[in-house]
């Protein structure tokens, strides 16, 4: 009887060892899934989402080529389309968290979507990254699983207020869409005009994001005679404002500042033709920038693969996946809590500098901000790499060029 017991124990131990031997390689092969939840169809800014996905995929390939994460496991991206709408964003996040078991989610572009999914990130304990969503409320809520490596709207408004003061503009009109982003930017502009002592008069006009005929709004602005118009549309509305402002002879006679880097995209001139000339826009990357070795390697590979210069969305998508890979290795775990600890404790190589997350005050919570530049196209079909930097003064390569009077 005792002998039988001994035999049974030995068989059990051997079976367990054999089992571990069989299961361990299988576990090692299990990929670590990271979600890319981004706009890939209208009404979202689908082109932006495509660039983010490009960068993220190249990052996953790089990480996997270097041996993966957590002792040899591959990174697998699961791409979901949020269409720039909160309801689709929430559905996409739920799928990534519960069905795909993603360990983190990047790619957030629209502030209203990011605002909707960050509560789910808390619930599922999965870090979510804003790749280009800039509303200050996103990080102002001080949520443990929300991170951002993009500018915050008050900073965006601060820099354009500095530019307005430097240029001596006296009447500034803001045409903004009625989204979290547009409303937030208008509120910040009103507030910071006072606190920064901007001497200019301010007129703000809101429009519905779905509207295609903006002629009445532009005629109202034109009759007010501004000397600067700030275009706070996202995606299609940016083009509609530019086209229709040109049609009612408001632009380029009145300079226009586009609030983000859409004009840097290759399709800009295809959609606008010569109506895009003289536009000024905010960007976060310029081809003459010195990048980190990681950023430089990405830029070289991107140029080889796509025969064009990368745009900021691709660089940021790339940086977020690589920093997540580093954080997974530092945490030695894919658990959300460990990942957050590692993200807060470590420093990461980004595309143009070192990224670190601290829990600062207000919106500076788990936030890293890239540089902001103002660029201007001064001739039709001008390539992005040849556009001049006109602000800030320490980086500028040219001055704001006014369109010749007709």
């Amino acid at each position: 009887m005792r002998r039988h017991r001994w035999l049974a124990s030995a068989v059990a131990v051997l079976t367990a060892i054999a089992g571990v031997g069989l299961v361990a390689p299988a576990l090692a092969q299990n990929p670590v899934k990271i979600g890319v939840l981004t706009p890939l169809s209208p009404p979202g800014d689908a082109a932006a989402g495509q660039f983010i996905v490009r960068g993220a995929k190249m990052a996953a390939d790089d990480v996997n080529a270097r041996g993966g994460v957590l002792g040899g496991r591959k990174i697998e991206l699961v791409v979901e389309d949020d269409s720039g709408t909160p309801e689709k964003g929430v559905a996409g996040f739920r799928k990534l968290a519960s069905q795909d078991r993603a360990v983190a989610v990047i790619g957030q572009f629209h502030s209203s979507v990011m605002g909707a999914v960050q509560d789910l990130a808390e619930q599922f304990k999965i870090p979510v990254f804003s790749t280009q969503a800039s509303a200050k409320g996103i990080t102002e809520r001080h949520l443990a699983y929300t991170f951002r490596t993009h500018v915050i709207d008050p900073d965006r408004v601060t820099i354009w207020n500095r530019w307005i003061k430097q240029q001596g503009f006296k009447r500034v009109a803001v045409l903004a869409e009625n989204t979290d982003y547009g409303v937030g930017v208008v509120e910040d502009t009103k507030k910071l005009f006072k606190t920064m002592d901007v001497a200019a008069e301010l007129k703000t006009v809101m429009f519905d994001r779905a509207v295609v005929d903006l002629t009445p709004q532009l005629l109202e602005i034109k009759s007010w005679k501004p000397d600067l118009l700030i275009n706070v549309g996202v995606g299609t509305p940016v083009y509609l404002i530019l086209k229709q402002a040109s049609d009612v002879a408001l632009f380029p006679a009145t300079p226009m500042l586009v609030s983000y880097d859409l004009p840097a995209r290759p399709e800009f001139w295809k959609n606008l033709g010569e109506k895009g000339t003289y536009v000024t826009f905010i960007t976060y990357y310029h081809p003459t920038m010195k990048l980190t070795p990681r950023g430089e390697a990405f830029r070289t590979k991107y140029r080889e693969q796509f025969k064009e210069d990368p745009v900021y969305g691709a660089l940021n998508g790339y940086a977020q996946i690589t920093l997540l890979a580093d954080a997974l290795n530092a945490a030695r775990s894919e658990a959300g809590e460990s990942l957050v600890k590692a993200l807060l404790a470590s420093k990461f190589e980004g595309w143009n500098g070192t990224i670190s997350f601290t829990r600062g005050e207000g919106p500076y919570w788990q936030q890293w901000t890239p540089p902001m530049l103002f660029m201007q196209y001064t001739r039709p079909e001008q390539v992005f790499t040849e556009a001049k930097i006109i602000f800030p003064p320490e980086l500028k390569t040219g001055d704001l060029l006014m369109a010749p009077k007709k």
Partner: protein
Amino acid sequence: MDAFLLSQYVLSGLVIGVIYSLMALGITFIYGIMKMINWAMGEFYMIGSYVQYALLATVLGPGRWWIALPLTMGAVFVLGLVTQRVLLRPMYVRGIERRDEYATIVTIALMVLFRNLAVVLGGPNQYAPRDYARPTTLLTLPISGNRFVALIATLALLALFYLLVKRTWIGTAFRGAAQNRVGIQTAGVDVLRLDMLAFGVGVALAAAAGALLAPDFLVYPEGGAISTFKGFEIIVIGGLGSILGSVVGGVLLGLIEALGSVFFSAAYKDLYGFVFLIGLLVIRPTGLFGERERTV
């Protein structure tokens, strides 16, 4: 009030109202003959803009929009015929009890299908054909050449449509079907074939609006949404089923939005039309030119 600015707003409202009435005319024409609402009308507008862009970008070259326009209308007319024959005709021949619900479900499903097809085939990005004409001035209003072309083409299409309905045999048949579907069958008219033609003509009008506005309003999968919205607003103002109502309703909507923008704020432009619509429905539930249903 600045009279110059007022005139600019009014002209701008009238121009866009006339162009949107093309869309409304398509909706109301289909309703008049087939007694069903085509909820996918905006998607035929969107398809029109894509076909126009594709023709100009690949086959015809950017300057030949006037050749592309009839080709686009023809292509969407054929698509309309096929859609009606395959998906909508069964509800007239198989004696379906809840015909309105059937038509609603089928056309909403078409809406989703066409939008997704546009994403699959054309990608999610925006496109824009090159401008049809140089910017110009209409009295006091600086206007894009595209919109001026769209205005003239719309007026021409409205005139053609009027001639078709009033001066041709098929037009007489259409008017007969609009008045009494059973009565016209006793006169030997194939009302099912008439339905097919009416659907084709209606969606071709929407496609013309899409093609004409493509350079100004861009080409993208959801591009037809706002014009459908305006189209339905116009037909309710003008009276469902009334061709005259759809033209007058379009002009009136444009005017109301313009005046609201002047006297209140341009930011709420789309609200003024709805306030007017609600007020009108309270006083005159059939719209301006609509008639009460008479059944025997």
